[in-house]
């Protein structure tokens, strides 16, 4: 029997409105203080356009790279019952709890010119990853991919329970069931996971400025531009913040079926 729909108790409603206000007020403040008159000229500036394009390009690349290398990882996590899977899951979750600046330092120590791996790239091929757009994508992927992996793993488990029994009874192995039945059924979750990873990559700051540095048009992304503009030109910082909020809101609206409830 479905639960009867009833009114939210007053006390809970009051507490909930406190939470709502806490989340909404800072966003509202940006709108109130936004330099609407000069918005066009600030955002139309050539350097700013470059920064916006770079941010969009790198964050999209990061989301796709996350999908390419994160999807198999999610499949292993969802399907393998081996004891090391727990260790693997912990490793995958690490970048979520790690302060992004620490992630940036770790990336430098691994892929920098004197890094664990980076020194060989430098010696053999003369490649240096830091201070390039590739470094931006790597930093963003490092912090964003875990969100994609965890989302996909949950989706795979969920779909698995319903479908793989049926597939198994039709004679398929576990991995066949995954490839032929489960994966096609989680399409919407894949979109949601990619969007989540993209949003995290789009907002990435600490790991990026530490690993990729800051150079307009090459490694300066929107969050870095906001941070630096805040020191010299707060008005421009607010304008850029407004753009980032707009883009984030657009993503939420596009994916409202997943995160905003389907009604």
């Amino acid at each position, binding site marked *: 029997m479905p639960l009867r729909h009833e009114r939210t108790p007053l006390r809970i409603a009051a507490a909930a409105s406190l939470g709502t206000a806490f989340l909404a007020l800072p966003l509202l403040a940006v709108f109130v203080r936004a330099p609407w008159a000069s918005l066009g000229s600030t955002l139309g500036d050539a350097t700013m356009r470059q920064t916006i394009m770079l941010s969009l390009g790198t964050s999209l690349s990061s989301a796709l790279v996350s999908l390419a290398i994160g999807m198999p990882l999610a499949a292993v996590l969802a399907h393998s019952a081996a004891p090391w899977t727990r260790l693997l899951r912990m490793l995958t979750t690490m970048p979520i709890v790690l302060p992004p600046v620490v992630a940036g330092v770790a990336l430098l120590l691994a892929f920098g010119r004197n890094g664990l791996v980076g020194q060989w790239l430098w010696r053999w091929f003369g490649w240096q990853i830091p201070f390039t757009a590739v470094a931006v994508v790597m930093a963003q992927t490092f912090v964003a991919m875990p969100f994609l992996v965890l989302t996909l793993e949950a989706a795979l488990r969920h779909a698995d329970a319903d479908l793989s029994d049926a597939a198994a009874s039709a004679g398929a192995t576990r991995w066949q069931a995954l490839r032929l039945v489960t994966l096609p059924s989680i399409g919407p979750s894949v979109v949601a996971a990619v969007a989540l990873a993209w949003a995290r990559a789009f907002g990435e700051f600490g790991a990026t400025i530490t690993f990729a540095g800051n*150079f307009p048009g090459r490694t300066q992304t929107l969050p870095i531009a906001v941070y630096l503009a805040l020191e010299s030109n707060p008005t421009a910082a607010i304008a850029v913040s407004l753009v980032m909020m707009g883009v984030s809101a657009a993503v939420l609206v596009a994916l409202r079926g997943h995160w905003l409830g389907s009604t």
Partner: protein
Amino acid sequence: MSTRRRWALGAALLLLLSTPVDAHAAAIKPGSACASQGARVLRGHTHYRCERRGKRLQWWSVTAPRVAPSRLSGSITVFAAASLTEAFTALAAAFHTVNPRTHVAFSFAGSPALAQQIDNGAPADVFASASNANMQQVIDAGAARTAVPFARNRMIVVTPPGNPAHVRGVADLADPAVKVAICQAQVPCGVTAAAVFAAAGVQVTPVTYEPDVKSVLTKVELGEVDAGIVYVSDARAARSRVEALPIPKDRNALTTYPIARLRASAQPQVAQAFIDFVLSDKGAAALAAAGFTVL
């Protein structure tokens, strides 16, 4: 009491009676021999300390603290430019010795970021900026009345140990093959670095504009860039982790550090005492030791 125990007591008494301080009591004067390094005695109005001079341990007079530890008490927060990190940390320890009931906490960051935070009401008592421009910003906002300049800092080229790109001076930084890190133009070290390039008549395109001078130093220390331009004081603080290439004085540029008490300070006396300490001889000595030019 066992016999052995009595023996032990007797031996301890003997030892006590024959302590070197008593034995040499009459001999204590500057330069006379002493036994244990670091020992202190008071003779008349002079304090003596046993110190190693050359190969021998000798008594030397130490100046007794002229004033009793001050009664000043309270905690202050000092917002200081990132380049002051080492000098001010050492200064605060000395300040604490003189004023044991005070506590100094620091927030070190790029001067514009600190000025911005102060203008937005950050609870700070003292602001030490790496440029007059950022101090003026705070004064214009009404957060401070006046500022006193207390030090200057010059720039220096630093490279990773071994100088892999064989940089010899500022002119080499213009070479596109040399990867350079400098401060972004909004912070004082970026402005001063630009002045150095202008003086040398070179166009330098760095691979990265770092948010503050310590980030430049980090990129050099890690060997991710071939060279960076930092303050002389930063190069000194980094010791052997970087190689320093001094810039000729006539081609160098400098920045002036002003310090001010903030009007919002809840501990104006402690704040002023700290500023006075920075401006004192002891403060000057600590700053000079850190590589600053003292005013």
